């Protein structure tokens, strides 16, 4: 083969082209911990690029948004979402999923490959990226499977998938159960790069479990998923990654033993990162005791208060690198069944910031700046540009009203699905507008009216 015929590296993220923003946001409190900004400024965006921060004069033809009393953050980046395309468009599609993301203040998301068909060969990945070029409202990146059909037996053509634009590899939804397969994937990582993102679970320990194993499952008579199902696999995989000097990312930590396992591996110098979801950071299995609601059924499950606190502490001390939603839409009829029958998963893009803000920032458990940073930290792990509010940077930011209270689900969802674990809760903090890749991709309805 002629070397010249090799494909040139694909751009990591794809989205639908939209008109670049010309916009001035007046009087908002700009908070970008990485850029070291925390103060009230006007921010001028010209042609989709941040042109001035300070008190710029408004040039002709530039829309002005009133940011007084509001917060302007670097846009959020979610390294873990399920957009359900191809094959499960009745749950979500590229348009609705990225609309939900934009409504949550996200400026980029990374989609998982457990679709139908699975993203396990370059042809499928290329066609999916082509579809995203027409349909995605914000930039989207894709992970490909570690194993063919996520079956756990045979590696995908990782190098070819990386060339076709895969940011990394995961069998998310399932563990890479066989240690030897994970080891080979880590060896192959030296050739093709890319992150190995791991859903950690030992199926022999999880069994037929549908919720956290503990006093609530004992009372309800529901089969439990023990926390050690997750933590033992993290310990195993950290050992393999250390041996191969590979890099792994642990998805959706849920148990305190898991936080310890990640901290231990980090202390030993293993190249390991980890994420936690807004629901695991703010809810416990007691919510299921209150109401046996299938929207509270996800994998890993909501665990107990000790676990939740360990996750919050892990986020604070850096053991946990980023917040990821694991946005997992399911159709209404799929969730309107008895708890044991329902599929695992909750949506999360539209509520991520508000949930963490309400439950952890407002009560003073975590500083706002840390939450803002962790909501975009997934970008760096995926090898993506981290959004920054700085002159010359492409505009990727969100305007947020921290005082706005809203009831989740009251006015419907941008997502095609409504299986949100926070449904019915009153949250504080609402995204008013999102600018992604230099274009305005979302305006909250009431805000759009008053701003016009």
């Amino acid at each position: 083969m002629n070397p010249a015929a090799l494909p040139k590296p694909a751009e990591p993220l794809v989205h639908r082209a939209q008109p670049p923003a010309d916009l001035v946001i007046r009087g908002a409190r700009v908070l970008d911990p990485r850029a070291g900004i925390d103060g009230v400024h006007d921010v001028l965006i010209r042609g989709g690029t941040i042109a001035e921060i300070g008190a710029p004069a408004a040039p002709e033809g530039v829309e002005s948004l009133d940011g007084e009393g509001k917060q302007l953050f670097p846009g959020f980046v979610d390294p873990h979402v399920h957009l359900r395309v191809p094959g499960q468009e009745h749950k979500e599609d590229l348009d609705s999923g990225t609309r939900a993301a934009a409504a949550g203040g996200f400026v980029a998301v990374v989609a998982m490959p457990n679709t139908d068909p699975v993203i396990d060969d370059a042809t499928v990945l290329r066609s999916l990226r082509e579809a995203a070029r027409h349909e995605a409202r914000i930039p989207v990146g894709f992970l490909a499977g570690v194993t063919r059909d996520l079956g756990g037996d045979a590696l995908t053509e990782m190098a070819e998938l990386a060339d076709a634009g895969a940011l990394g590899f995961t069998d998310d939804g399932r563990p890479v159960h066989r240690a030897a397969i994970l080891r080979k994937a880590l060896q192959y990582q030296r050739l093709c790069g890319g992150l190995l993102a791991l859903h950690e679970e030992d199926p022999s320990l999880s069994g037929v479990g549908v919720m956290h194993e503990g006093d609530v499952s004992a009372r309800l008579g529901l089969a439990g998923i023990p926390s050690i199902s997750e933590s033992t696999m993290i310990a195993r995989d950290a050992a393999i990654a250390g041996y191969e000097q590979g890099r792994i990312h642990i998805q959706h930590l849920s148990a305190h033993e898991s936080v310890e396992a990640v901290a231990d591996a980090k202390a030993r110098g293993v190249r390991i990162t980890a994420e936690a979801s807004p629901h695991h950071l703010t809810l416990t299995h007691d919510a299921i005791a209150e109401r046996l609601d299938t929207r509270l059924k996800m994998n890993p499950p909501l665990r107990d208060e000790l676990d939740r606190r360990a996750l919050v502490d892990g986020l604070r001390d850096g053991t946990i690198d980023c917040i990821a939603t694991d946005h997992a839409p399911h159709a209404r009829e799929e969730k309107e069944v008895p708890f044991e029958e329902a599929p695992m998963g909750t949506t999360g893009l539209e509520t991520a910031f508000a949930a963490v803000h309400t439950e952890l920032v407002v009560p003073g458990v975590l500083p706002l700046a840390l939450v803002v940073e962790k909501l975009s930290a997934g970008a760096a792990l995926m090898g993506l540009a981290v959004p920054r509010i700085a002159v010359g940077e492409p505009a990727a930011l969100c305007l947020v009203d921290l005082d706005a209270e809203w009831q989740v689900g009251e006015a419907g969802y941008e997502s095609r699905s409504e299986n949100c674990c926070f449904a019915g809760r009153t949250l504080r903090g609402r995204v008013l507008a999102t600018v992604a890749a230099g274009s305005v991709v979302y305006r909250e309805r009431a805000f759009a009216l008053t701003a016009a």
Partner: protein
Amino acid sequence: MRHLLSIEDLDRPGIERILDRAKSFTEVSEREVKKVPALRGRRVLNLFYEASTRTRSSFELAAKTLSAEVINFVSSGSSVEKGESLKDTVQTLSAYRPDLIVIRTPHVGAAELVARWSPAAVVNAGDGKHEHPTQALLDVYTLRERLGALDGASIWIVGDVLHSRVARSNIQAFTKLGASVTVCGPPTLLPRGVESLGCDVRYTLDGLDEADVVYALRMQKERMTESFVPSLREYAARYQIDGRRLGARQILMHPGPVNRGVELAAEVIDSPQAVIGQQVAAGVVVRMAVLYELLAGRTAPDRTLVTA
């Protein structure tokens, strides 16, 4: 009381009111004409997604004794086998305007869902491994008949607590009526966290002689293939209630059906300590009391409660 979904929802006075009512119904079964017109014209729907002999027949008998109309709906050969969802089945059957639905399913929380989806009163006749409240009520009824009161009684529940809805309902009912409960079985068959229900946990029958009541649970054969126990033989050797282990003054209970030679030895099933037959008889009057409690004096359900 609008529904009977779990023992967890009941308090001691609520339980005692049902037991007193059940007691008042005993003389009906002794009459030549075993029928009273208390629920005449009311419609009771038995919706059974799991095989059941005694629970279903005793609900049917209870409803008929109170002169209610009974419709039986079993899942085999029905639209359920054609893939109809629980919600659709319930909404379809609700068009028959039942005043009360008795539901048994293999799924935790299903009775609660039916209560949400239908305007009828709902009785949980067993939802997966969660609860079986009428079993607990008939068991406390039987014990009250024997002991007068449960206050201070020591009750041992022996066997497969992990997979037992009877255990979960009974631990709560017994403790609410003042008894102290010990669960005993192999560690693999006791759920982690079970002590949060307010019971003691033992792994051997040592100390069983302190029990006033021994409540043996059914040991299903498939637990062996799922390797919860290495063999039924070993299980029986350690946990079977037999003539040596059962004291003369102890009361022996079992929810049925019994695996002779597994959880119970033949000699204790037929012993004077066993009240297994009384439990079955109590099932009818207790279920009459539950139906009466939920339906008598209540007008037909409000159709506007039906939600999409």
